[in-house]
């Protein structure tokens, strides 16, 4: 017990984790959920009490009666909404036809609406229409569920009537026989309506999973790696209880802390969800909620919530044990970080890329991301093909988690007690040392910069990351010709003709082309009529028709072109800028490619941080910094050169990751519009500086470079603050990597509140277009950079006392 207490003490006395990181991440967790819900359901959240009063009215009636009344109400209020909208003076063809339909089918509702309270109270109409639709959808879900479950046996019998499903001993046969039995007990359960937004939204919060994973990594660092880095492990292992009892205590503390944090993090989401929406009747079965229609578990909402929490806790503990194995087996922070990144990367790839019917689907379901998706485990019935036997996904997951959990615990204990790696003398490092000594010795100059570069890239193995970046960059270069489909090829042909400023000739060409498309049906009719009258032969008829059909193939491309034309016209009228036709296929490839931008920024940041986070900590690890600082060039010169190496690394990796796009653009596309105003590209219509495309590309490139230097600057400052490689990896990941993943997951607003915008400048200019916004953003970044630089310099000189445990 004492050992456990000490291990606990180690964690809770870390001010950085207890007072800074956990509270910050907890706030981010809750804040992001809250903001997301506000974005999606602001109206419901603002009127939640009114909603419950509305719902209560119908709960008091029988389900059939309530559903019928609601159906009528939704229909009526829908018509009222149309009438009210029409009364506001709006005019459009769809509205006109709707009004006509109302006049024809339900003229009595027009009078009824005029005499109702809704005619003068739009807000009431909006609210009741919204609420009635919401409650009616709940009744509909219940009604559909009855027939869904009731007809399952019938569907199974139909399936078994065909020969391909009749082969006993196959997965299909067994699955068809098993499924109705698994749903049998749900045939006549009592179902009740209730608002499900709180339950469903709090079940889908992958950001919480991600933040907890970061904290578990941090716990792993303090429990395992910290002792290795300080060398205290050698002392611990020589003690009487220094092996099995110590590792047992560490694992218990890791599991307990993980459990506690999981409860706090997921619990906080529940609390917010409950405050925003409430959970409705907690004793109703989950099948009352449409999202749980496919669940075969007979559990109530409250039972689901507890099982959800239990599931999340178990998965977090399971992940913590995986981390423990990595921390114990590997000796170096960057190796641990890279290995865990690789594990998560592969798991994610398996989770999203493997089809449920793939032969390798076990890798999809026995997978970290699948386990984290507790909602799917509890709420979606799916049998996995296990050598021809249908095994429920939830059973497979539970078995896999518990078996591997035991394996990880045993591995962790054995590795800690028997083979704890402190300085491994394995084959690869020896080989690396030989190569390093033979090929990468410092020759000639012993300039501080040379020496520091040698330390950064060879001693600290940063060269591996640079080589990796170069491989990624080369791999992205597309030397093959880019091919186009027919629509795009026609569009390219149009652009060949129209490329350049929009002038009278081009306007005339566009109008003529449009006229030809508009006249196409009448020309077809004319040909048909001429043929019917015998003026042309059948051969001429088919030939002429075929010519028109060939012309019609250009329609898709022309629609795209016409959209650009309208944009250029509007641009000239509103801003006076005479824009040019710009190849949209090429401009979309470079400027309007969110997925590419996000993936590149993630890749760039990860590579950069792994390189940077050892620059300063490596001197602190063995205490050489004390000696270095006493030397002539050991203060500002050394400090500045380390920063310079960081900047050089940032520039190099940026070149490798980002330059291939430009190469591919020039080589693969017909893009010769570099001198056109940037506003010619529709997504950049709001850019408020007179600038051409090539100037814009250079501006964004320079800003991106400046931004990445600021990121480097801040990352180096953080690594200097914490002085430990592992810690700096964690802290910089929280600040630079996690926001990118959150944005990747769809939370776009985080872009301007993080460093993400540095890598999403095309998106930023497309969204706001105001250079003032960018200037403000970069101003803030520069202030942060200056502050972090000053703090780092003071920290380097030991003038700044941050998060250090007092030496006794």
């Amino acid at each position, binding site marked *: 017990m004492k050992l456990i207490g000490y291990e606990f003490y180690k964690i809770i006395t870390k001010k950085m984790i207890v007072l800074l990181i956990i509270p910050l991440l907890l706030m981010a967790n809750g804040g992001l959920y809250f903001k997301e819900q506000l974005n999606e359901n602001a109206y419901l959240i603002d009127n939640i009490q009114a909603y419950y009063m509305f719902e209560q009215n119908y709960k008091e009636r029988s389900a059939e009666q309530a559903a019928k009344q609601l159906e009528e109400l939704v229909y009526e209020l829908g018509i009222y909404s149309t009438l009210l909208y029409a009364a506001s003076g709006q005019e459009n063809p769809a509205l006109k036809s709707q009004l006509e339909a109302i006049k024809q089918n339900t003229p009595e509702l027009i009078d009824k609406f005029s005499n109702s309270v809704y005619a003068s109270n739009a807000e009431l109409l909006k609210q009741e229409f919204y609420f009635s639709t919401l409650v009616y959808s709940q009744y509909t879900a219940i009604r559909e569920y009855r027939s869904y479950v009731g007809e399952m046996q019938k569907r199974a019998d139909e399936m078994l009537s*065909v020969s*391909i499903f009749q082969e006993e001993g196959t997965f299909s046969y067994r699955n*068809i026989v098993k499924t109705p039995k698994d749903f049998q007990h749900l045939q006549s359960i009592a179902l009740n309506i209730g608002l499900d937004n709180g339950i469903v939204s709090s079940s889908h919060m992958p950001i919480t999973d991600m933040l907890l994973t970061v904290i578990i990594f941090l716990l792993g660092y303090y429990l395992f790696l910290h002792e290795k880095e300080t060398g205290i492990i050698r002392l611990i292992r020589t003690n009487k209880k220094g092996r099995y009892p110590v590792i047992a205590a560490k694992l218990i503390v890791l599991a307990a802390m993980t459990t506690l944090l999981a409860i706090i993090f997921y619990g906080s989401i529940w609390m917010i969800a409950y405050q925003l929406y409430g959970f409705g009747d907690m004793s109703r079965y989950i099948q009352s909620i449409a999202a749980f229609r496919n669940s075969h578990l007979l559990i109530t909402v409250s039972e689901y919530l507890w099982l959800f929490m239990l599931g999340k806790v178990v998965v977090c503990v399971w992940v913590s044990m995986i981390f423990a194995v990595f921390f114990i087996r590997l000796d170096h922070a960057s190796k641990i970080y890279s290995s865990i990144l690789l594990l998560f990367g592969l798991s994610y790839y398996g989770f999203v890329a493997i089809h449920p019917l793939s032969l390798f689907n076990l890798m999809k379901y026995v997978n970290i991301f699948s386990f984290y998706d507790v909602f799917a485990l509890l709420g979606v019935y799916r049998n996995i093909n296990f050598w021809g036997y249908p095994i429920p996904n939830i059973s497979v997951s539970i078995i896999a988690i518990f078996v591997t959990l035991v394996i990880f615990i045993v591995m962790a204990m054995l590795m800690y007690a028997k083979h704890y790696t402190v300085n491994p003398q394995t084959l690869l490092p020896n080989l690396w040392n030989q190569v390093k000594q033979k090929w990468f010795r410092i020759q000639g100059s012993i300039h501080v910069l040379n020496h520091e570069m040698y330390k950064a890239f060879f001693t600290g193995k940063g060269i591996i990351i640079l080589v990796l970046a170069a491989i990624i960059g080369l791999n992205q270069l597309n030397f093959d010709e880019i*091919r186009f489909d*027919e629509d795009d*090829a026609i569009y390219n042909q149009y652009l060949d003709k129209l490329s350049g400023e929009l002038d009278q000739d081009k306007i005339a060409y566009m109008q003529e082309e449009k006229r030809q498309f508009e006249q196409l049906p009448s020309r077809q009719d004319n040909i048909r009529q001429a043929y019917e009258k015998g003026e042309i032969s*059948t051969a001429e008829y*088919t030939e002429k028709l075929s010519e028109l059909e060939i012309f019609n193939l250009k329609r898709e491309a022309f629609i795209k072109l016409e959209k650009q034309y309208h944009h250029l016209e509007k641009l000239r009228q509103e801003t006076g800028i005479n824009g040019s036709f710009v190849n949209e296929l090429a401009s979309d490839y470079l400027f309007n*490619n969110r997925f590419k931008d996000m*993936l590149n920024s993630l890749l760039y940041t990860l590579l950069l941080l792994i390189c940077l986070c050892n620059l300063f900590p490596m001197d602190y690890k063995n205490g050489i910094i004390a000696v270095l600082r006493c030397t002539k060039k050991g203060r500002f010169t050394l400090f500045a050169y380390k920063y310079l190496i960081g900047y050089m690394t940032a520039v190099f990796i940026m070149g490798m990751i980002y330059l291939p796009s430009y190469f591919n653009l020039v080589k693969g596309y017909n893009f010769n519009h570099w001198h056109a105003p940037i506003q010619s590209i529709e997504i950049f219509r709001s850019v408020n500086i007179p600038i051409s495309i090539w100037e814009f590309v250079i501006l964004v490139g320079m800003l991106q470079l400046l931004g990445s230097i600021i990121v480097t600057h801040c990352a180096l400052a953080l690594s200097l603050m914490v002085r430990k490689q592992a810690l700096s990896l964690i802290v910089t990941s929280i600040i630079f990597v996690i926001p990118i993943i959150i944005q990747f997951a769809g939370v776009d607003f985080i872009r301007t509140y993080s460093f993400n915008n540095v890598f999403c400048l095309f998106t930023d200019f497309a969204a706001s277009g105001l250079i003032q916004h960018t200037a403000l953003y970069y101003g803030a970044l520069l202030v942060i950079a200056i502050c972090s630089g000053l703090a780092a310099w003071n920290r380097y000189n030991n003038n700044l006392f941050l998060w250090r445990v007092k030496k006794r």
Partner: protein
Amino acid sequence: MNKMMMYAVAFCLIISIGLTGCQNAANYDNTYHSETDYPYMFHVQGAGQSIAASNNGYYFLNGNFIYYTDKTQMKPVLLDNRPDSDCLTATEPNQIENCNAYVKIEDYIGFLAYSEEKVYTIESTSLLGENNESAKRMELIERSKDGATRKSKLTFDFAPESIAIHRGIVYYSSRDYSKSSELDYQIKQFNLKSSSAKSKTIYNGELPEGHILDIIPYGKNVYFLESAKNMYRTMRYDIQNKEISRMFSDDDKDNPSIGGIFNNQLLFSYFYGDPDDEKAWIQYASDLEGNQIKALPIKTDFMQNLYASGKYIYVRPVWFYMSLEKYKHLKHEMAVYDEQYQPVDQLDLSFLPLDHQLVVGDDNYMFIKYQENNTSYLQYLNKAEIGSGNASFKPLIETPAG
């Protein structure tokens, strides 16, 4: 230890050489093998294949879903072994796409084939592109015959215009443009049985605005239609000799096209640009190389589409022209002839919309597919009823159109 290693290596070599030797030698005979060969009787001109037959039943691609029915019952079920799946009534896109029988075809015309106990479809997918971008591609997907497992066999940069699977090889036409809009079109082949196979070009088209349509492999031949502006021609690729030859005529004005294959003979016709030209009404037969051409004794009063399967030949007026006032008098009927070219029945097709597909089918059934009111319909005709005077199409599947 070294000796042991040597023995192990030698053992592995012997096994691999043995396994290589055991591989089936390529089959170059000119007879039809239903297990491995392209089911030419399910080919639809211009549309390829979307119905396939196994020994016991049929697979259908209707809308976005694959169905299966036994030949004995003709009661189709979705190719999904999950009674809990309710994809046909689901409204959420992800619920529909989670259905095992769902085929994401988007704008593509759709393809379904059955070969050596595997079902093949072409589906749309998003992949990671060369430069980390999300790229839209088409994939050839192989499913087990009960749809319980699937894997991706081949990725296409552009949707193939025509595709056929024959004796373990996929033949498909590919068409794309350079950045200066220069057209390239070709036929490629891909070996389904090789795990390391890459697509290989077997023919590069050179006609301006050319297309390759209607790839129909039979025996050791792959027939295809190469079309360009105001002309088309029928070509043959000899699988054994790897040679391409032009068939039936060298004159660009003759426009020959294959209608069907009947008793190891190619049935074809010419089109000289005018449907009223009586020469275009004649149907011909030739051997599999396109030689020994002879006119068929089938008398018609207009240009006809010809189909052949089992013991019957079917002809009907080219229905495209029937929408014209001039040909309104023509009845949309299908005449059925026996092997002696004697008429045996007349089928009413007047209920069909202009846009439809007729699949002549095997010895048992004929099929018709069409769309109306956002619903895909599939109907079938029992060929056993031919000659009885009661033969008619019956509804088989109705699916919301994709």
